């Protein structure tokens, strides 16, 4: 051991400074000889460190001097606006590629449908300025606006409309199955299209506001994955998958009302929350949607520069139980889980903005009622139910929760904690979305699943026994059929509400919460839709007008001082609200 000590001293040179053997060599004799020439030339490392310091200072200086507001102007209306989003489209092929990110970016901006919807999820005119519905509610006649054109200059007429819908049905493009009871579509003349249904379908107009109603140029040749030719107020300038999409105002836009207010829109996609927040803080982007409520906290405090809003959405976090699974086919187990989950706890940990929901219909859809009282948080009752089935905390039932990795690990951990006391041992399996699609969605090989069903008007999934829930109820199917066959909106609403209540009672799933979208904007940004903006973003009215920088004000954060914008616009900011 003594030789090891010597060796260490030689190596480190820290332990015993007086030790004359300290030196670079393992040979003490040699080291002693090395001591002699103390006076030499100045060491080169001094030069090197001086150089390093110079380089460092230069880099720091460069970093400071290259900062410029991205908006490009300091007063008046900005010519470009940058918007930060979370979920990126992988390609632009809206007829094949799923995902809300595509709807958000393209529908109403680049592509337009026969009809559109507004901030309250109601159907509005778009390419068609009016329509007639026959007495038996099976024939819809749409009147197109005059002088419609695509961004490439091609005329848009009734033939294009009929062609688009026929292609959709023929090739089973995305959302084709939403166009239920479809019989035929044809162009009556240049400006009129007739859609024939086999039976009444109450959702038909709403469905046409989405992908199913989009009108494509039948003459244009382009690669739909990387380009887009539509009739909307914007055109696609450039697209980098998973990174950014640049929209430019369509100079040939046919309409007056929806003409783009901002010339260039940069849609930027951030896979990382922190990156997005930093982009907003450094004002590289002017809007960020969505941001988690927890991350928005610093912006909520800084009302001078930012405004934080929460908007309604149709995202439903569905904790599905495999209704045909060996363990979860017992209704008592499913009910116990519903009683055991503390929804308010989940919502609070996420920042407290999301809404509890007791059934399958979110507040923005027809048929919504507050039915959260059906399964209130009641761990005692849950425990009793589990005991009836024969499980206790000491002898727990093991269940597997499979969910995609996009939702983070927190929800799984929380559910596991909440189910533990009632005698359920929840095993978490966080998988890639593709694995989830295969195992859960296609093969129905799961106990519990958690996924965000973001689409609106999607109640029909509860009427499909082959859907991954494995839920089959004749009562619900009949009620849904009645709702869809109803001529009046009130009747539809009434029957849907009844159906939703029935679904909730049967406990085929638990609805953790209705996700509300938190949006942060810079003061001075106007017209950004706050409701439903993850699936529908009418971008034409977005504009940004930074006011003159303040001449005086409190010192900016740390060393770096950005121009500050006045907050006078804050009060006039248009804030939409529906459903609380």
């Amino acid at each position, binding site marked *: 051991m003594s030789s090891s000590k010597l060796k260490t001293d030689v190596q480190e040179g*820290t332990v015993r400074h007086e030790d004359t053997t300290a*030196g670079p060599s393992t040979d003490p004799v*040699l080291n002693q000889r090395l001591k002699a020439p103390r006076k030499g030339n100045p060491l*080169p490392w001094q030069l090197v460190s001086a150089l390093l310091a110079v380089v460092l200072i230069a880099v720091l200086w460069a970093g400071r001097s290259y900062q410029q507001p991205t908006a490009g102007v300091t007063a008046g209306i900005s010519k470009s606006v940058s918007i930060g989003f979370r979920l990126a489209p992988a390609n632009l092929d809206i007829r094949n590629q799923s995902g809300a990110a595509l709807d958000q970016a393209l529908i109403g901006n680049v592509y337009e449908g026969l009809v559109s919807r507004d901030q309250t999820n109601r159907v509005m005119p778009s390419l068609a300025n009016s329509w007639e519905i026959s007495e038996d509610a099976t024939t819809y006649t749409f009147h197109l606006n005059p002088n419609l054109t695509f961004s490439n200059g091609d005329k848009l007429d009734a033939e294009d409309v009929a062609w688009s819908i026929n292609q959709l049905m023929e*090739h089973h493009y995305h959302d084709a199955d939403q166009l239920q009871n479809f019989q035929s579509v044809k162009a009556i003349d240049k400006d009129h299209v007739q859609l024939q249904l086999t039976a009444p379908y109450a959702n038909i107009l709403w469905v046409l506001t989405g992908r199913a109603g989009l009108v494509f140029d039948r003459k244009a040749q382009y690669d739909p994955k990387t380009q887009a030719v539509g009739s909307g107020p914007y055109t696609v300038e450039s697209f980098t998958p998973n990174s950014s999409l640049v929209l430019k105002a369509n100079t040939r836009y046919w309409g007056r009302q929806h003409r783009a207010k901002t010339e260039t829109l940069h849609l930027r996609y951030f896979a990382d929350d922190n990156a997005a927040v930093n982009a907003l803080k450094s004002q590289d982007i002017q809007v960020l949607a969505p941001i988690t409520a927890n991350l928005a906290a610093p912006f909520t405090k800084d009302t001078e520069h930012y405004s934080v809003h929460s908007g309604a959405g149709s995202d439903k976090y569905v904790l599905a139980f495999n209704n045909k699974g060996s363990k979860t086919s017992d209704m008592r187990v499913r009910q116990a889980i519903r009683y055991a989950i503390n929804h308010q706890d989940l919502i609070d940990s996420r920042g407290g903005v999301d809404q509890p929901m007791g059934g399958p219909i979110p507040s923005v859809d027809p048929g919504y009622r507050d039915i959260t009282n059906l399964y209130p948080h009641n761990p005692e009752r849950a425990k009793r139910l589990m005991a009836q089935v024969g499980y206790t905390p000491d002898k727990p039932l093991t269940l597997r929760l499979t969910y995609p990795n996009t939702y983070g690990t927190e929800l799984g951990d929380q559910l596991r904690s909440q189910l533990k006391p009632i005698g359920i041992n929840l095993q978490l399996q966080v998988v890639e979305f*593709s*694995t989830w699609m295969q*195992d859960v969605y296609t093969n129905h090989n799961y106990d519990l699943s958690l996924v965000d069903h973001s689409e609106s008007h999607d109640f029909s999934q509860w009427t499909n026994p082959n859907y991954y829930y494995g839920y089959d109820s004749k009562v619900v199917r009949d009620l849904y059929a009645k709702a869809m066959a109803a001529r009046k909106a009130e009747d539809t609403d009434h029957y849907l509400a009844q159906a939703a209540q029935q679904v909730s009672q049967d406990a085929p799933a638990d609805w953790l919460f209705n996700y509300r979208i938190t949006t942060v904007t810079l003061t001075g940004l106007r017209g950004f839709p706050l409701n439903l903006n993850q699936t529908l973003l009418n971008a034409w009215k977005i504009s940004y007008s930074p006011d003159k920088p303040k001449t005086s004000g409190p010192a900016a954060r740390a060393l770096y001082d950005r121009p500050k914008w006045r907050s006078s616009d804050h009060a006039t900011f248009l804030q939409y609200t529906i459903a609380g």
Partner: protein
Amino acid sequence: MRYLVRRIVLFILALWAISILIFASLRILPGDIATVMAGINSSPEQVAGLRLRLGLNRPLPAQYGSWLKDLVHGDFGFSMLTGRSISEQVAARASVTFPLVGLGIVLALVIGLTMGCLAVMARSTRLRSFCHMLALVAGSIPVLWGGLLLILLFSRGTGLIQIFPSQGFPDTGWRRPAEALQTMALPAATLGLVVGASITRYTRSALNDIAGSGWIDMARSCGMTRNQALMRVGLRLTLPQLVSVVGLTFAEMITGAMVVENLFALPGLGSGLITDIGNRDLIAVQSELFMLAAFFLVIGLIVDLLHRLLDPRLKESTVTGRGRS
């Protein structure tokens, strides 16, 4: 020469083995791109239609055969998801990753060589051991955490001293080099610091060994001071070893680069690869993995040959066991 021939034959065999490994392991995994593209509200008909259009119904050997044939011809195919040519896609991502890794390496070398030399040559024992300890500590920091610390210190928006952006890469790319370089600053610094620490340790120990060798005694007996001898003779003697160390470090750096790309939201090879795997864009993933593996095999080959070229003592040393490294 025999080593060279064997090395190249094995290089080609390894490439081929890797292509099979990649292809096979990607086919075992659950899920395919058609279901991912179709999404949650899709019908089986829609998925079937997509599968047909994407050519996913062909038998596996046929798919492998055509992929390999294209590879040999230098054609990496088209991404099913983005519809772009994969070589183009990889080139775009490489234009982020290579400068990042390159800057990182340069920084690491500057830090590593300086600190390594200091740790051996500085006159004060305190400074020497300080350098050594600093390198030990810095080398123990996880890249992710190092990046976080730099963000907290220097990022625009969050940092204590707000000078560098901490997110994304400008759409304009390298056409505006100043902007692009700025976004590289923190990520490259993260890599450079962590890798620099390990280079410091290599340099230090290599120099220490040389310092105790006869070559330095020889140089000093010719009238050089100890530090002169170490700078002029010692560094040159450690060069071959450093080259292989840097080569290997380069390979290991890709792990760090992937973490850093994700943390700083840079659209590079690493973050792109992870997205593609998530989307089951198999043609893209297999080509990208293959290219990366091939790239690192080539690096390994070059480093090995360079090492032999730089160090004539090593001619047959691995076989005879006479060499020191």
